[in-house]
């Protein structure tokens, strides 16, 4: 209250008599805006802590986000405290697992490492730009973070596929892989939609969700068509 009165008084405006505030209120106080609560990091410098603490803190944040993807419900952890470590780890591991496919010639095989990388990152950037251009309120890196973390079910599916392919490559294994990849594709799409759909204008939700569907469909297709040598 004091700051408000001080703001009014220090203007030195004539015609102050029109304002119904008595003039013998003491003019004092500070114009300070109370800052929001500090995160624990800012109370002490993180420069002096052991390296293990720094790494463990980031690892815990990444791990927490993985858990949030597994049980997708509204959480600010994924959105507010975005990071791109998780998406990077997932993308690299997915691209590595997609290596070693069979190819008669270089042109006919599965995607190369760089192609998987480019598809995932370029696809995520394009989807984020699309949602921002359509009027979405989410920030650029938050959206990248969500899309990257929601690749996790598909990475799990790739792992399962490779294990199933170790056992054999017949029709039964194909049906198992189809079911697993299909389920994980649905999970990825639903998880990312749960996080991203609320930040869109209501009459354009379908326009934003469809590219996400296409993105995870392409990744699922790459996983499903992986054939070992």
């Amino acid at each position, binding site marked *: 209250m004091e700051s408000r009165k001080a*703001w*009014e008084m220090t*203007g030195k*405006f*004539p*015609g102050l008599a*029109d*304002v119904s505030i008595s003039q013998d209120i003491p003019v004092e106080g500070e114009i300070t805006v109370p800052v929001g609560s500090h995160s624990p990091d800012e109370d002490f410098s993180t420069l002096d802590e052991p390296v293990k603490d720094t790494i463990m803190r980031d690892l815990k944040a990444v791990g927490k986000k993985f858990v949030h993807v597994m049980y997708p419900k509204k959480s600010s952890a994924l959105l507010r405290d975005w990071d791109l470590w998780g998406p990077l780890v997932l993308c690299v591991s997915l691209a590595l697992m997609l290596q070693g*496919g*069979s*190819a*008669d010639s270089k*042109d*006919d*095989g*599965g*995607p190369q490492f760089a*192609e998987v990388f480019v598809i995932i990152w370029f696809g995520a950037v394009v989807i984020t730009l*699309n949602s*921002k*251009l*359509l*009027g979405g309120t989410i920030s650029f890196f938050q959206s990248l973070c969500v899309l990257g973390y929601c690749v996790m079910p598909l990475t799990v599916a790739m792992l399962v596929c490779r294990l199933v392919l170790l056992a054999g490559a017949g029709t039964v294994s194909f049906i198992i892989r189809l079911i697993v990849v299909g389920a994980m594709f649905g999970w990825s799409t639903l998880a990312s939609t749960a996080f991203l759909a609320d930040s869109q204008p209501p*009459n*354009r*939700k*379908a*326009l934003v969700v*469809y*590219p996400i569907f*296409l993105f995870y*469909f*392409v990744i699922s*297709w*790459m996983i499903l*068509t*992986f*054939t070992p040598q």
Partner: protein
Amino acid sequence: MATADDLKFQANPDATTISIDEPVEIPKNQHSRLQEPGREEDDELLGTDDSDKTELLAGQKKSAPFWTFEYYQTFFDVDTYQVLDRIKGSVFPVPGKNFVRLYIRSNPDLYGPFWICATLVFTIAVSGNLSNFFIHLGKPTYHYVPEFRKVSIAATTIYAYAWLVPLALWGFLMWRNSKVMNIVSYSFLEIVCVYGYSLFIYIPTAILWIIPQKVVRWVLVVFSLCLSGSVLVMTFWPAVRDDNRRIAVATVATILLLHALLAVGCLAYFFDAPELDLPAPIIPTHNGTTVVTKSQ
């Protein structure tokens, strides 16, 4: 001289906020209002009014400088129902109704062309791969390959078609416009929009091309070509018909030819020739395996 109002920093309940982007709503109103019957013969006259109005509105709408994000947001100013309407209009062309006048209404969007092209790229690549898999399924020497390289080829082809051909067509129409005063003229984005939405019919066509029958595939080619070609013809015929008759016919014929070339080229490159309709003699070899002679 400051008044009491200057000292008030609480929200004034009497104040109203005025937003300056009202003109954006005008094209949408036109979209719902102008579905009157009997527009076919008025198309030419309405073209004049519309082109005046559309240029005025276009100038009002895209007023942000091109290096700001808001400028590009004006190209994505569509709702879900509008995109679905435009897709419907490209798949079921009504004779005599101009796609641009009826659906675009000076609000060309880049959402439709971009994502329809992206979907088409992946649909063709996936369908081609699936169809080859089914065609070669029973053979002992066949080993499935994902053929991922074809995705980049498909992407280059389709995006080049959807963006370079409109550029060339727009340049050509501008050049003819300087020589012959045409009543109807389109902006570059409207042409890109028409081409993008006219490619939509190829998405279900590509999925149906998985069926390994030559007759079925060619029937599909002709059918989709008729539908999307008619959308293009009905859009561009009013723009060139005031010109020299031979140039007008040549322009429309080139548009259709390029469209057909895209369809046939995609069918030929991504989908192997089906062999099920060519009965081949079976020659048993000496070690018992059966060799089927086939023609490519």
